C-alpha cells in the first residue's frame, strides 16, 4: 500500500493524533518526544493511553524506540466490547475518557469501558463535566439510545486515585449532520459539589458560595452535594465543584474546580473555590457558543465524520487545543472549516463567537458488522 505516514514532532496533542490516525486508518509517526527533557520519552500516562487504545482496537501495531522518544502507530480496526483499564494516576480519567468518547461510536461492538484512576483533578476535564456536557453533545449527533451512559461508581482524587467510572456507548454507522447555530438562553444551572475523605460540610459551603454569585442572574440553580464514603471514596482526600449551565436549545456550558491534591500547594478554602468556580462559569458563558470549550474538538470531529453534508456549529473563541485539532483534521481528513467570526448584535450577550462550517467526509463506520 502507499506509504501515507504522517509525521509529527513532540508529545503535545498526542491524543488528537492517535484518534485521527485510528479513524482515518493512516499510520502516524511521532518523533522527538521530550527529547531535550531530563526525563526523555513517553511518560507513564501516555503509555497507559496507548495500551488502552490497543485494547479497544484489533490489529494495531505500535513501535516505540528504546528511549521512548519515537512512536510509530499503525492503527487497526476499532473493536470495542468490554474493556477494563487502570488509568495512570498522573492524569485523570477525563484524559482517557475524551479519547474513548471520540472513538466509541465507530467501533465494531458497542463499548463498555471500566476506567479506574483519578476521577477529578485540576488539569483535565473531570468525569462530571464530561458526563454533563459531552454526553448531550453526542446525542446531538445521533449517538443516542439506551447504551449511552457514563456512570461514576467511585471517586478518586489525586494523587492516590482509586476512582472508577463505567462508560458505555452504542455504535453508529454514520453520524447526522448538525446545524447548531443558536444556543438559546440559559434556563437553569445545575452542578455537583463533591467531597471525599473530608468533612461533608465542605460541599455545602461550596454550594452556598457558588449560589451567592449565580443568583444574580437566574434563580433556577440546584447544586447536588455528593459525599462519597468508604470504599467509594478513593485513596486521597479532596473536594471540588462542577457547574453546568443548561440552555434552552439543549446545549451545556460547564466549569469546574478542584482542591489542590493532598500535600501539594496550600489548602484552598471551599468558599473561595465555590466563588471561583462560579466566576469561571460566567467566563464560559461570556465566551458562549453552543458547545463547551472542552468539547469543541469533539464537536469538530463529529462534524468532520458526518455524511457529505454541510454542518454548522457556533462556538465560543477557539481554544488552542481545538485550533491544533483543526490543523490535524486538515492533515488527516483534508477537511477545512469555514471559520467566520460573529459579533453578537446586542451588547449584553458575551464575547465574540465563531461559526464553524464544514462538509463532512462521508465517513462510515466500516467496522460495524451488518447482518
Amino acid at each position, binding site marked *: 500500500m502507499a506509504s501515507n505516514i504522517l509525521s509529527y514532532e513532540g508529545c503535545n496533542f498526542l491524543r488528537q493524533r492517535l484518534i485521527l490516525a485510528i479513524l482515518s486508518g493512516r499510520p502516524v509517526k511521532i518523533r522527538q518526544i521530550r527529547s531535550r527533557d531530563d526525563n526523555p520519552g513517553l511518560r507513564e500516562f501516555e503509555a497507559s493511553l496507548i495500551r488502552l487504545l490497543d485494547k479497544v482496537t484489533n490489529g494495531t501495531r505500535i513501535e516505540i524506540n528504546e528511549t521512548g522518544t519515537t512512536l510509530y502507530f499503525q492503527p487497526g480496526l476499532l473493536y470495542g466490547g468490554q474493556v477494563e483499564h487502570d488509568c495512570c494516576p498522573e492524569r485523570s480519567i477525563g484524559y482517557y475518557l475524551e479519547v474513548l468518547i471520540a472513538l466509541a461510536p465507530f467501533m465494531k461492538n458497542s463499548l463498555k469501558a471500566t476506567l479506574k484512576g483519578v476521577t477529578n483533578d485540576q488539569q483535565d476535564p473531570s468525569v462530571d463535566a464530561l458526563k454533563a456536557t459531552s454526553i448531550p453533545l453526542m446525542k446531538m449527533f445521533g449517538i443516542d439510545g439506551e447504551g449511552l451512559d457514563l456512570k461514576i461508581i467511585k471517586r478518586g482524587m489525586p494523587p492516590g486515585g482509586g476512582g472508577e467510572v463505567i462508560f458505555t456507548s452504542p455504535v453508529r454507522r454514520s453520524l447526522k449532520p448538525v446545524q447548531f447555530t443558536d444556543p438559546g438562553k440559559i434556563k437553569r444551572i445545575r452542578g455537583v459539589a463533591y467531597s471525599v475523605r473530608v468533612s461533608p460540610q465542605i460541599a455545602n459551603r461550596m454550594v452556598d458560595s457558588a449560589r451567592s454569585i449565580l443568583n444574580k442572574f437566574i434563580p433556577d440553580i440546584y447544586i447536588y452535594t455528593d459525599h462519597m464514603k468508604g470504599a467509594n471514596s478513593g485513596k486521597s482526600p479532596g473536594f471540588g465543584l462542577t457547574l453546568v449551565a443548561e440552555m434552552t436549545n439543549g446545549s451545556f456550558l460547564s466549569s469546574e474546580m478542584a482542591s489542590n491534591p493532598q500535600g501539594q500547594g496550600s489548602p484552598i478554602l471551599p468558599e473561595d473555590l465555590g466563588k471561583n468556580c462560579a466566576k469561571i462559569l460566567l467566563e464560559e458563558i461570556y465566551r458562549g457558543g453552543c458547545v463547551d470549550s472542552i468539547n469543541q474538538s469533539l464537536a469538530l470531529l463529529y462534524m468532520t465524520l458526518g455524511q457529505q453534508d*454541510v454542518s454548522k456549529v457556533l462556538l465560543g473563541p477557539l481554544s488552542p487545543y481545538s485550533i491544533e485539532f483543526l490543523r490535524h483534521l486538515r492533515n488527516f481528513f*483534508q477537511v477545512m472549516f469555514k*471559520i467566520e467570526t460573529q459579533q453578537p448584535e446586542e451588547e449584553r*450577550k458575551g464575547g465574540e463567537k465563531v461559526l464553524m462550517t464544514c462538509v463532512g467526509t462521508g465517513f462510515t463506520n466500516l467496522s460495524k458488522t*451488518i447482518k
Partner: protein
Amino acid sequence: MKEEKQQHKTHQKKHSGPKAERKKRKRQQEQQAGTNEEDGRKRNPKAFTVHSAVRMARTFHRTQDLKTKKHHAPIVDRSPQEPPPFLVVVVGPPRVGKSTLIRCLIKNFTKQKLTEINGPVTIVSGKKRRLTFIECGNDISTMIDLGKVADLVLMLIDASFGFEMETFEFLNICQVHGFPKIMGVLTHLDSFKNNKQLRKTKKRLKHRFWTEVYQGAKLFYLSGMVHGEYQNQEIRNLGRFISVMKFRPLVWQTSHPYVLADRMEELTDPEAVRLNVKCDRKISLYGYLRGAHLKNKSQIHIPGVGDFTVSDLSFLPDPCPLPEEQKKRALNEKERLLYAPMSGVGGLVYDKDAVYIDLGGSHAQEEPRPSAELVQSLISTHSTIDAKMAVSKVSLFSGSVALQSDELQDEEPCQENPKEETIWDPEKGRVRRRAMFADDNQEEDEDDSEEESDDDDEENEDEDDMSEEEYEVDKDNDKEVSDAEDCGPLKRRKLKQDVEIDEALAFADSNDELEKSEQESSDDDDDSILGKEDVCKNKRQIAVRDSGHCTDEELQISDEEHNNLMKQAKVSITKSESSENKDDEEMCFETAGALHWKEGLAKKAAEAFFRQQQTAPNLRKLVYGKVMDDEEEKAEEEELGGLFHVSRPKAQMRCRANGIDCSRYPVDIERDWDCEEVLDSIRDCFVTGNWDKNEDAAKLLQEDDELYGDFEDLETGEVYQGDTDKDKDQSDQEDTGGDEDEKEEEEKEKAEKNERLDKKKRLKEKFDLEYDEGESTYFDDLKGEMQRQAQLNRTEFENVDDETRVQYEGFRPGMYVRIEIESVPCEFISNFDPNYPIILGGLGNQEGSIGYLQMRVKKHRWYQRILKTRDPLILSLGWRRFQTIPLYYVEDHNGRQRLLKYTPQHMHCGAAIWGPITPQGTGFLAIQSLAGGKAGFRIAATGVVLDLNKSVTIVKKLKLIGFPYKIYKNTAFVKGMFNSILEVAKFEGAILRTVSGIRGQIKKALHTPGAFRASFEDRLLMSDVVFLRSWFPVSVPQFYNPVTSLLQPVGGKDKWTGMRTVGQLRHDLQVNLPHNKDSLYKPIIRKMRHFNPLHIPKDLQRMLPFKSKPKLQEKKGNVPKNLQRPAVIKEPHERKIASLLVALSTVHNYKKKAAKAKHHDQRKGFFRQKQGEEADKMKRQKEARKKIYKIIGQKEKKRQKSSLKGSGHKE
C-alpha cells in the same frame, strides 16, 4: 440527479372535426338520459352508501399499505448542479459494430465525423446534457472497469449470430457492481433474408434480454447499414433515447469520487528518464470528476495499475462546456462541442500553465484533406472548433468503414447446445462463444407480429416526447449529410494532393492569403470562445488572443513582455499578498480588453487587499496559516539560493511541541465578575435577560392579545374585549359626524379592512398549523429534513469562488480536473494504450488499508466447476481487481466457522480473504484467470462483503487418534495421541470417543510422555481406537496481488497471469499427483476366521438343563469288526415273494386311500345336510320365540295399561 421540470404542452381540446362532434353528441346524450354521476347519486343513493364497514376498513388498509410500500428511505440529494457528462459505455462482442455505432452517434449529435476513436469522446448532446462515449473492448478487465463507472450501457448484440458469452458476462458484472441503465441494440439485422425468420429472431432475443435485465427493457434494432453507417433515422431515435434518459444513482458511484481519464501527460524530469529508463514516472491525468467530492492528497486506485496518493489536484476550465444561456432553441453549431484528446480532437486545451491549440501537427499532412474550395466552404459554414476538427482528424467522406458483406455468409444453423458453443469464425479470425439456452428454441412458431407493432408504437411515443427543436435539428442534419454525400467520394483522391501542399505552405508562412483568411475567421471565433470562458487565468492565453495569427516566436516574445509587466505590477503592490495579487490579475484579464488590462492594476490590487483585510477573518489565517501562499513561500526560499536556506526557528512551535496535552481552555483574562458592568455583559445570555423582538414573550403576548383579545369568561360572565377603543371611536365618530371628510372615512375603512384581513390570515395560519400539520407523518418530516439539508448543501458555498470553495468541500463532481500522480511504474507510460480506460477511483478513509474480509459467496450457476479452498482467485471488489487466496467456510449453528474444501454447488458459503478494506455490502465477482481460459462462462463466483476484521476465526476439524495400551474396568491408559505431558495437560477434561461409540474423558497425564489416563462409560477393548475431536484454527494466507493489466505490453494487456493454482502448476510442470499408497484400492483379501471351541465350566454344566447341556457322549465310532453283523442275502425265491408282497401292499394302500377319500366326501355331504337342517330348525325356533315374545309383550302392555287405569279408577 436533479429533477428537471419538463415543460409539457397543455392539452388542446378539439373544437371542430369528427372527434369534437362525437364528444358533443355523447354529452348531449348523457344530459338527456341524466347519466352523469351527480344524477346517478340522486337516482340511486343506495349504490353509493357504505355496505360493509369491514370491507371499507380493508380497502382503506390496503390503500395505506400500498402507499407506504412506495416509500423509499429518503436520502439527501447530493447531485451536483452541473453534472459531469454521462458515461455511455458501448459493449459487445468483437465485430458487432461498436465503433460504428459510436461514430454514428457522434455524427448525429455533433455533425462531425471521427475516423479514429481512441479512448473516451465527450460531446455536448443538448442544452443540459453532455455525454461521454467509450468503447469497451472484450478484455474482461476492461469490461469490469467500465461496468463500475458506466451510467448507461449500450449492449450491442449481433442478431445474425445470437447472444455471445461476452454479453452475459457483462450483464453479470453490472449486476454485481450496481446496475446501471442498460439498453440493448441489435445489429446485423440486414443479414436476414427471410422476414419471418427475422421477426422470430428478434422476439427470441428480446425475451431472453428481458429475462436478463428486466421485463420490458428497451431493445433497439439497427436494421442495416448504408454506406458503412447505420441508418440515420434509427441512430436519431437512439440518440433521442439517450438524451432524455434518466439515470439512477448507484450507491458505490455516489459515495466515491472517480475520474475517467481522457488525457494523460507525462511530467517526469527528462534527465531522470535519461539516467534510468525504468525510473518511476510522474504523470498528470485529466478528466471529469464524477461521483462524490474529491480532496487533494487523498488516496486513489487506478484499476490495473495500483494505489496512489494524489500529489496535486487542480481544476481546469471545462473543455466541453454546456451552452451558457438557456434559450428556447436547439443548440447551434458552435455549442455542439466535441472533446476527445486521446483521439486527437480537442480544439483548445487549457492546462494548468499553458494553453494548447491543436494545429494538426505532424499528422495533419497524413490526413486526407478536401480541396481549397472545400475548405473555404467549410470555413464559411462551420465555426472555428469545427475548422480545427477538420485540421485534426475529421474527414467528411470516409469509406474506411466498410461493411463486410462476407460476414453475413457465415451463419450457422442453431443447435440445441445447453450453454455455450465455441465457433471458429474464419472470416473474423476469432472464436465466437455463442450462449445458448434451452428456452431459445421455444415459441418460435408463434406469430409475433403483435409484438412488433407494439414496439413500433413505443418508439413513436418516444418520438412524440421529443421537443420540436430537436426535430428541426434533425432536419438540418439530414440536409447536411445529404449535401456531403452529394459531393461524393470521387473528388477526394484528386483533391488530396492539393490540400497537402496548401497545408504545408500555410504553416510555413503565415502571410499566405488563404491561411490568413482561415486564421482570421478562426481568430474571431477564438475570441468569442475565450470571451465566454470567464475562468481564463492564463498568461499565454492573453498572448494568443492579442497576437492573432502569431507564430511561435511571437508567442514567446509576447510572453516575455507579459512577464515583465507582471513583475512591475508586483513591485507596485509589495504589501498585498500574492494570492490576492493573482486574483486581481485574473480579474483584470476577465474584464479588461486586449491591452488596457494593466491600467488600474495597482489600484485594484490595493482595493482588493483592503477588502480582504476587512472581510476575511484572521482566524482562518491563524488556524490554517497562509494556505494560498504555500507555493509562494517555497519559491522565495528557493530564490534565496540553491545553497542556503533560511531556517527560522519556529520558537513557538518548539515550545508547544512538548507541552501538556490538555483540552481545557484556561481563563487567561480575569474579568472582575464582582463589577456590575461586567456582569451586565452577559445578562442577556440568561432567560431572565432581554429577549429578541421576535421571541420576547411580552411582545408576542401583546400581539396575540390584539388577535384573540375578545373572549368571555364563562364563569363570571364578564366580557373582555381586545381593542375596544377603536370600535368605540369609530362608533362615536359615526354618531357625531356625517359631516366629516369622506376621504378620511375611506382611508380608515381601508386600514380597518387591511387589519381584518391580516387577522383573518393569521387565524387561518394558526388553524392550518393546528390541523393540517398534524397529519404530517414521520416520513414527511424526514423527507423535509433531507430536503432542507440538500438546500443548505447547495447554498452554503454558492457564492464562494471556486478556488476557496474547493478547499472547503473538495473538488465537486462535474469539474474538469487535472490530477498529478507521482511514482507511477514506467510500464504505464511505455505500454500506454489509449483504448484501455484509465479510471481513477477515489478511496474512502480506511479503504487504503488491507485486512481480512469475510464475504458471502456463491459459485456462479453457469460456471462449470466448483472452486477449491486455497486456489488463487481474481476478485473485482470496489475499484480494485486483485488476486487473492480465499478460504471457504460455512457457519455452523453455534457460530463456528468451519472450513470447507470446496464451494458448495448450489449454495452460498462464506469466504475469508486477505484484501483491501472495502465497506460492507459491496458486491464482488471472481474470475479464475484472466488469460487463456476462454472456455465457458468466465465469472466463477459472485458475492458480497459481510465483515471486515484484522483477524479471522475459521477452524477445521482435527481428529487426534490414540490407542489403549492398558484397560481396567472403565479406565484405560491411552497412548499415541500426544507427544508430551504438557500437551496432555492442555487437553485435560476433553471428550473422547471410540470407534465403537463409547464416550469418555481425558483425566490426567501419565509419566510416559504423551500417554494419559482416561475414563469411559464402558470397558474398552484393546482393539478400539480412541478419537479426540478438536477444532484447529486455520490462518488465511496473506496474499494480495493487484492485477496490473495496464502495465502489460501493448497487445498483451489481457494476458496477465498471477499466481497459478496447484493444478495449473502440476499441468505446466507435468508433475503427477502425489499418491498416498494407503489410499489406493486393493483387492480385499479376508482371512478365514478360526473360532475356538466353546468352553463351559463344569459347575455351569451341572446346573444347565439337559437340553442345554453339552452332549458329552461321544459319537458312535466305527463298530469294530467283531461286533459287525453280517449282511442278509436273499434267495431268488425269497426275493420274488418279497417283491410280490411289496406289490400287494401297494395295491392295498391304494385301495385304502381311495376308500378314505370316499368316506371323507360322504362325511362332508352329511355335515352339510345336517347343517342345513340345524339352520332351518333354528329359524323356526326363532320365529316361534318371536311370536311368543310378541304376545307376551302385548300382554304386558295391556296389563300395565289396565293397571294404570285401574289405579286411576281407584283413586
